């Protein structure tokens, strides 16, 4: 009779220990969970803090500008002559826009064409070659592209155009096009691949040719993704600095021709920021230009988000 009792006691003890162990483990898990929760929270807060600081500090210094000169003088005057206290940024803004537009005009048709090739036409071995190469191109530092522009593209443009310098919007746009091409191409590629196979099958079943399938079915179906890709390329083109500085001529004036030496927001900031006095209208204008760049890229990113949301809704 004793033995089972003993057995029972032993069993009870074991389960008690087990419960204790389980409780300990439970607490450990809870602790681990809460620590990692705080860690993740901290990570995102740190990022938000940095982003907030960027906006606050750039914005604060930038807005000081309007205590010195009126917004009209800054946004609508084409005269940028810091030595004579003239801080009109209109030329840079227009140049930035026209450079971005020119870049996209060159880059978009080519990169979408490449994306179609990658996604629809190329045999597998070619795909598995092109895609890694494009990924590699995305990672090349911009100064390398700039250097190539300076030593290869400029002499070529000089020969072709007969200009003395070759620097200007066209040179910068060509370099930028090369830089944004892989970005636009890879993302468009993914968008095209994501178009459901049944669309194509249906179109072929109705007797479409391959060209008709691509032009009338696949590209329209992937259009939102492609537009996102183009905008992402645009943000890179708007913000690119080093490569542009090396081939644009850095002369603060409105570009009236493709070969006129000129300057955009980014290149002007980097050329002048190390030469300005801290508390000067000049410094504030450069900060305002940086702030403008921030705003432009925020707006572009916002458009991408909105497009993405619409696509999910559809």
């Amino acid at each position, binding site marked *: 009779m004793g033995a089972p009792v003993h057995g029972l006691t032993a069993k009870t003890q074991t389960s008690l220990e087990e419960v204790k162990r389980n409780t300990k483990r439970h607490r450990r898990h809870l602790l681990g969970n809460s620590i990692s929760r705080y860690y993740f929270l901290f990570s995102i807060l740190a990022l938000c803090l940095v982003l907030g600081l960027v906006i606050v500090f750039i914005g604060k210094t930038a807005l000081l500008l309007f205590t010195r000169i009126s917004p009209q003088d800054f946004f609508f005057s084409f005269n940028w002559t810091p*030595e004579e206290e003239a801080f009109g940024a209109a030329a840079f803004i227009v140049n930035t826009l026209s450079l971005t537009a020119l870049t996209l005009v060159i880059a978009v048709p080519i990169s979408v064409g490449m994306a179609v090739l990658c996604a629809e036409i190329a045999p597998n071995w070619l795909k598995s070659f092109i895609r890694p190469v494009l990924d590699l191109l995305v990672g090349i530092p911009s100064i390398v592209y700039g250097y190539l522009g300076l030593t290869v593209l400029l*002499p070529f443009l000089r020969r072709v155009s007969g200009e*003395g310098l070759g620097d200007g919007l066209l040179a910068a746009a060509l370099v930028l096009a090369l830089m944004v091409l892989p970005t636009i191409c890879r993302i468009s590629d993914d968008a095209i691949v994501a178009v459901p196979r049944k669309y194509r099958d249906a179109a072929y079943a109705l007797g479409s040719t391959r060209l008709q399938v691509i032009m009338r079915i696949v590209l329209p179906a992937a259009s939102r993704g492609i537009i996102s890709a183009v905008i992402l390329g645009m943000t890179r083109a708007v913000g690119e600095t080093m490569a542009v500085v090396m081939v644009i001529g*850095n002369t*603060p004036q409105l570009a009236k*021709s493709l070969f006129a030496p000129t300057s955009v927001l980014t290149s002007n900031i980097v050329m002048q920021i*190390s030469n*300005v006095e*801290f508390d000067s209208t000049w410094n504030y204008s450069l900060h305002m230009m*940086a702030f403008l760049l921030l705003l432009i890229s925020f707006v572009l990113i916002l458009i991408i988000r909105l497009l993405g949301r619409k696509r999910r809704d559809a």
Partner: protein
Amino acid sequence: MKMFKKFTVTALTAVIAVTASFAGAAAAADSLKGKITVNGSTALLPLTLQAAKEFQKLHPKVKIAASGKGSVTGPQAVKKGIADIGACDWDASIDVPGFKAFDGQVANKVAVIPFATIVNKNVGVDNLTTEQLKGIYAGKITNWKEVGGSDANIVVITRAFGSGTRVNYQAKALGGGDIVKKEKNYKETGSSGDMKTAVGTTPNAIGYIDLVYVTGGDIKAVKFNGVEANTDNVINGSYKIWAYGYYMTKGQPTGATKEFIEYVQSKKFQQGSLKKLKFIPISAMQS
């Protein structure tokens, strides 16, 4: 941006201080203590770094941190109290074109910096006068044949406004004349290195640069008013395009800063390392 500037300065300071303390570790004990921060002109940076290395061997307890950016950041950093010494390519205690004087700062001459007018190797002209240079940079002379060369457009390359080299070149070579931007055949560069590349790779280009950068076969220095650009002609007074490099301090320098400036100005340093770095001793000009 301000914060970022400070951060950069601090980071550079830290790196250089560490390097410097290793260099100085072997030297004998010495009573002079302190920390000297030097900021400003990149043109004078090689000189400052060399002097700091030698000075810390003599005085191991002195830490010298040096960094370079633009000339005007030197006196600015001194004004803000970030740096003890602001290296500057012009005398920042008086007004120069584009920059007001920094009140209460003292300019200590430390070196003579010669500058040269340079052209691409394809240019046939080898002498230019003040008037011709003025005409070229004002945009009035646009073809090399007007100054005795072949029939080709002159491509003007200049430093961006605010550069110390530009301030000095305008004052000494152009006699205070303006540099006028043009729609064509005109380009601004951000540093001496860029200037050299731009003139070297652009046929028919003209530019200006510190004499020490005139090396290699792509660019050549032209004579100024018939005088060749070299250190001998600077010293004998016939070549006029040169300027003093200055260490700006808040009031008269004191303590370790004073000792350091005196070391840089000393005969030993001026005749030794400074000459090796291709600057010209200040004493050469005062005789």
